């Protein structure tokens, strides 16, 4: 089924929040997922795998608080945001890991001329397009033990840009299960008062 990019971004944002990320990081997750899909990559699928791995872990277990590693496993949204905030991606070679859903790092470092690689897959940018080289199936990895960010352009084929998303049912169902956690269960009082009805709405 074809989705609009706004729908996917909203679903990804809510799912990330439901999995325990702060609202500000959940917004980053929504943007990153949309960006990946618009650039021809399986952003929603990788996000659902990463959130499943990271579900319920506290910030200090998944954040790069002490070098580019975490007490448990690096969250790609938290780590990507830190890479962007610290301007770290443009400043020479980095090794990170282990990282859940490493593909989600790409949107955060895309402004820099760098190559992102793990397990035989290499990603970079040329103009507006993502360049994919090496073993393409690797983009779907749920986790990578070691991720490299190197200065310099990537070699490979350019992926065409997309303006719609094709999501498989399992990805939607996993993301939706996380998103559901952000919704308050209805009570009789909220049904009546929360939306503000009371007067006749039909005259």
């Amino acid at each position, binding site marked *: *089924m*074809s*989705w*609009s*990019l*706004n*729908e996917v971004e909203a679903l990804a944002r809510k799912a990330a929040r439901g999995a325990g*990320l*702060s*609202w*500000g*990081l959940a*917004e*980053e997750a929504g*943007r990153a997922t949309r960006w990946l899909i618009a650039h021809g990559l399986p952003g929603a699928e990788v996000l659902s795998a990463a959130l499943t791995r990271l579900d319920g872990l506290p*910030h200090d277990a998944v*954040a*790069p*608080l002490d070098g580019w590693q975490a007490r448990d496993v690096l969250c790609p949204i*938290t780590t990507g*945001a*830190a890479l*962007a*905030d*610290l*301007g770290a991606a443009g400043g020479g070679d980095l090794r990170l890991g282990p990282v859940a859903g490493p593909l989600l790092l790409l949107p955060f470092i895309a402004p820099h001329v760098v190559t992102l690689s793990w397990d035989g897959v290499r990603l970079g940018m040329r103009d507006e397009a993502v360049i994919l080289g090496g073993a393409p199936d690797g983009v779907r990895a749920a986790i990578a033990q070691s991720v490299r960010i190197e200065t310099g352009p990537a070699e490979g084929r350019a992926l065409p840009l997309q*303006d*719609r998303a094709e999501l498989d049912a399992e990805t939607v169902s996993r993301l939706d299960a996380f998103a*559901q956690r*952000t*919704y*308050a*269960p*209805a*009570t009789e*009082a*909220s*049904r009546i*008062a*929360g*939306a*503000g*009805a*009371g*007067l006749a*709405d*039909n*005259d």
Partner: protein
Amino acid sequence: MTDPAAQTAPDIVPRPPAQVMRLARLGAFHQHRLSFLRILLRRAKAESWRYDRRVFDVDARGVGHAVLSMHTPKHVYSLVAFAHDLPPEMRSDRVIATAWDATFALFDGLPTEAEIADLRANIPLQEAGRVGPKVLSVSRANRSVRLWDYVVGCLAAGHQPDAERIEEVGYLMRTTAVYGSGKLGAADREATADRPEFQPPFQIEMLAVWLIRTFVMDLVEHMARATSPQAVPLDPALRRRFGIGNSTGLGMAPYLINHPVLLNNWIGVREEALARVRRVQTATPEAAATFRSLVARARLNVDLWRSAHPLQLEKLAELRADLDRLLAHLDTADLVHDDPWDRLWRWAEEALGLEGQEAVVSLLLEPYGDLVDGMDCCMAADEAAAFRIDATMSVGRLAAILRDTYGWALAIDWDAPPAQARAWYTSAEKLEPRLGERWAEPVGDYEQPLSPGRDAARLAATLADWSEAAKVAEVLLRHPEHRHIIRRAQIAARHPYAEIRDNTIGAEVLPIDLLRAKLAFFGAQHFDPRSDRWVRISLYPGAPFPDELASADPDDWTYPTLPA
């Protein structure tokens, strides 16, 4: 009417955000020249858009479909309307409804038979259906029980309905949701934003509603004809008095908070427009006469504005008194010489309440299309472009931004229960925004980030423990819970009108203030709150229909004409 370069006093600047961005003032806004449906009609007129009703296939029970198309210079847009025979007990304006009197898609192009069949399988279901990227907007409407049967009956009996009774309601159908920008699988706004006709905000939705109004008037006349061979059509002048109603609840309220750059651009353009008119040093006698006449018409408009809600009755009384005061002032005021509009504005700020002041803003823009209309293109926004946080900023600078933009919030005692009495949340049942009582309902854990003031105060408390020289990046790494408000604060520092400077979760907050501000920018009239969080309005009352636009003024219809 004026040459702005030769005749302006440069020392008049737009009003400061601390004055404008208060909920009570935003809740007193009125439609104006830069409201979105007026931008649409001006463009349709200037570009001679051509209208044609390609299909009207509705049976005697009122069931069927129609296709109403608008031809713009480069694109054709078609309203595909489905009319239904809805049992009265199923008719509800609330978003929890599952059936409607009519459902609509605005389609990109001319739909084929197969595409119409596909729409017929999905559009009547609304949220339970799916659409594709050739659909730009999905919406639905219900009949006014008070007016529909009455008007059909009058026309079928061969006579015109009573104008007074029409004014009591103002519309034959009201929309209960107009979805755009990717909802239900429709095209993203980004997919059409490069078309000039859709560059300003909400043009897709405004076009859909304009065509819905046209369809509804055609439908009521059709139903009268189906009832009786003696039926007459509506008198064209009376026909124009009908707007299209809209019933809006909390679903729309968080929008302005969630789109800070867009809000900045809407308000900023309106404030710049006011400043430009105030800078006119000498007005033409024609502009002065236009203004005088418009004030009288605006006063008449208040008498046509019906509401039963105590809060609105109070506002209407204030507006009536303000406009009476303004009319008395105009008896002697010189509106031509010596910075006439700035003098008038300064008088209004002293003499009038918020309702009257904001009405004067709208009225002052009317004679000055040449000064203000060109700014319509500046009202759109690219929120994505403002998304990235500048994490190289120092903690000292961020703290200064907080004091500047959120000083009002830093002064609130957020530990006092009334300060956080409410929480915005999304209901599991309908996935719609709601406002709950934080201390009485289990909603706090589900709170949406719609309380910038409280969040700024929390951030300020955290920053107090950091060195002023530290970088924001370091704070973000340790405190992911502040990422949202840090982004907002940086946006607000670059966009002065981005942030509402009031508590949006306090015991006193009135969501209808947010609704009115947004709806006034749409071009809505006759705000009629049904509670503190739900409002009915009318769109396009008095406006020309698409087939009348060639011979009509696209602007001079929002205030009723004075009796001869």
